[in-house]
């Protein structure tokens, strides 16, 4: 460890100064570098093979017409022109953004509210029970959950409408009306996903020193005021991580709308990843599917970059 630490400045010096270019690393230094390279190699190879190559492959494929069966043909930007004139693609981007806003907001609010509640006075065993219960849906398969939820939210035979009926209310077309279907997909998604944000918030709250809360209490801050002025600013780094991960996941939502509504009624719950799947594996238009994938990649990168930019203003590190 010490070796590496002492040699880093030497490398910097060499890069900064023309005269230093002639300095050759010692045999020991070369050995250390080789060892470091060996340790890094599996990760680097993994990233290159499973991340960089597929991304580059997608970009290249987006410039070709390919139906799996025949040889690919160069298409230039035709696939991009096609998807920009395809109303289904455009609607899917709108749906995905709407879904992201509602799903991430609900996910963060519910997770934060529950984390704050559990952070209050409560027997330790009860806290453990709640933590496990809230996290449990996350380890289940999204497809399985969606199949069960499809039964529960069925307009004519589902348990949810049966319960609503007990209060004399009319059945809600959860999965067969445009707004109902989107709301149901959001509900099912949030129910499963909020456990992750919840765990992050629990960890973040535990890291806030009690002394700060005590000092705030001495200054007269209580209840909501204490959370707004003390807890939230100190929790903002966690909030940033939770929102970044939440947004990235939400922009890639697939299983819930695919199983619950198959994108319907109409296109009202069709998401971008569903369109990628349909174009590639149902319509055999792998080039267009890749072009949509590239656009989604750019969108995710842009949203994430924007978040980090905004975080400079809103995130406080202790």
């Amino acid at each position: 460890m010490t070796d590496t630490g002492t040699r880093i400045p030497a490398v910097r010096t060499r890069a900064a100064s023309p005269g230093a270019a002639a300095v050759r690393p010692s045999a020991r230094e070369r050995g250390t570098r080789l060892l470091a390279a060996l340790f890094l190699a599996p990760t680097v190879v993994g990233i290159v093979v499973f991340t960089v190559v597929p991304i580059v492959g997608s970009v290249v494929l987006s410039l070709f017409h390919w139906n799996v069966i025949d040889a690919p043909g160069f298409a230039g930007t035709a696939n991009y022109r096609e998807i920009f004139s395809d109303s289904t693609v455009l609607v899917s981007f709108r749906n995905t953004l709407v879904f992201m806003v509602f799903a991430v907001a609900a996910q963060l609010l519910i997770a934060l509210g529950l984390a704050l509640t559990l952070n209050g006075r409560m027997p330790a065993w009860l806290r453990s029970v709640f933590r496990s219960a809230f996290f449990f849906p996350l380890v289940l398969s999204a497809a399985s959950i969606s199949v069960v939820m499809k039964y529960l939210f069925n307009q004519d035979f589902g348990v949810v409408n049966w319960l609503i009926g007990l209060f004399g209310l009319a059945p809600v077309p959860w999965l067969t009306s445009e707004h109902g279907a989107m709301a149901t997909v959001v509900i099912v998604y949030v129910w499963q996903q909020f456990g992750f944000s919840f765990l992050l918030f629990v960890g973040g709250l535990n890291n806030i020193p009690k002394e700060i809360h005590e000092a705030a209490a001495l200054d007269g801050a209580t209840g909501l005021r204490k959370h707004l002025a003390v807890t939230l600013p100190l929790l903002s780094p966690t909030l940033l991580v939770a929102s970044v991960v939440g947004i990235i996941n939400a922009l890639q939502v697939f299983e819930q709308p695919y199983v619950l509504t198959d994108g319907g009624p109409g296109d009202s719950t069709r998401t971008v990843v569903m369109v990628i799947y349909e174009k590639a594996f149902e319509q055999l238009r792998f080039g267009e599917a890749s072009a949509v994938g590239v656009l989604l990649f750019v969108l995710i990168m842009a949203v994430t970059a924007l978040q980090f930019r905004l975080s400079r203003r809103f995130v406080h590190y202790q």
Partner: protein
Amino acid sequence: MTDSLLSRRALLRYGAYGAGAAALAGTAASWDRLTGADIPGRDDGSLVVATLGSAFAPAGVRALVDGFRRLHPDIKVRINAVQAVDWSDFFAKILTQIAAGTAPDLVYVATEGVQLFARHLGVPLDRWVRRDAAELKEYFADVHPSLVESMMYEGSLYQLPIEFNAADMYLNTRVLRRAGADFPAADWTRDDFTALLRRMKKASDSHFTPYFWTNRLWGGVVPWLFANGTNLLAESKAPGGSWLWDSFYPADRRRGRGGGFRWTTPQATDDRVVEAYDYLASLVHDGLCTRPEGGNGQNLIGVFSTGRVGVTPAGGFWAGGLHLAGMRADGFDVQYFPRRHTQRHQFGAAGYALLRTSKKQDEAWEFIKYSARRETLGELFTTNQTTPARRSMLTTARYRETGPAHWRVFYDTLDRFPDTGPIPAPPQVAEVTQVLLKHTGTALASPGAVGPALRRMQGDLEKAMERDV
């Protein structure tokens, strides 16, 4: 500026790196593409047969393989049971295997994929059928020509149908009794059907829905279009096919047959199509039927068997499904689909398609013939999970345990209504299906939505059909 910092040694080193990288890239580029088949042990020389995982029971699959091995000990066969929720999902997975370089030799393909496979992947079976005509006489004599015609594309035969399902109407007999209604007559009309739904609704509580249907290509809105004497796409017959009809079918049974179906011009705004949708919208509005959901109707068996649904369209496959769900043989019955302008029914059939990429085409043909044998189908279709394509297999004994009482309806649908035909499935079937489901959902999601939804459907179908897949 940076160049001036490079020593000669460094320049040589980077040059060597570059040359190495170029050599590697060149080698990779000139190498044959590595595929899944190159994985050691993956290709064991077997004839690979891809089936829809849920189509056959494991015991049936074992019997299929063992029986073929006894008949052809020199041909090694491997069943690749692909798990999928429906045919569209199944095709997607088969295409993934093809893309990965591990294409099977034979694929079990339903009507939905017949033309797609025929156009891009399939091998016509004509030469083998001609060669083994004497052996196949008995098969064709037992199989309705409509089923065979549905497996033809542009004059050639691509599959031997081994099963099919026509969309008939299942009725819950307990619900019928509760409503004090008689079992409908074979020539019942759409008005009779509506009256029956009203009667069922009146005799039941608020948790009951008389008619249930699923938004899909088979058994969704299409049977109502057929009964209205129309179709989603204009239908015609390809020329050709006489080589088969003249060899295997008598004159009265081959009349009007051609070289397979053609589905071309979209006609979603046709008056009769609009009228069929208006009718379904009125049923939804009056609480006589469910709003259609996508999917494969997996929750239907439960609600039908418990008497929360009175009527639903289904094929012979449902006899086994309801029996497995615990319904008694007399708990349900089946009748033809009601008449409107016609009583033409829709069906879907399935059989094995031989892929062009197969290097074992003669062996694959032997398997196709074997799979269409009566005794082979007897081993496969033990639980009435489908309707066998061979008429001789539909017997009283077969349906004694499962029901329904009017089991003859399953095959008689083809005889009684000779214009009964396959669901519209051109090579662009994936996009056509998606457009149909999407706009059907919208059309019936809110009052007054039928007209605009069908106009959008027409536009989207035109785009889909223009595309060369």
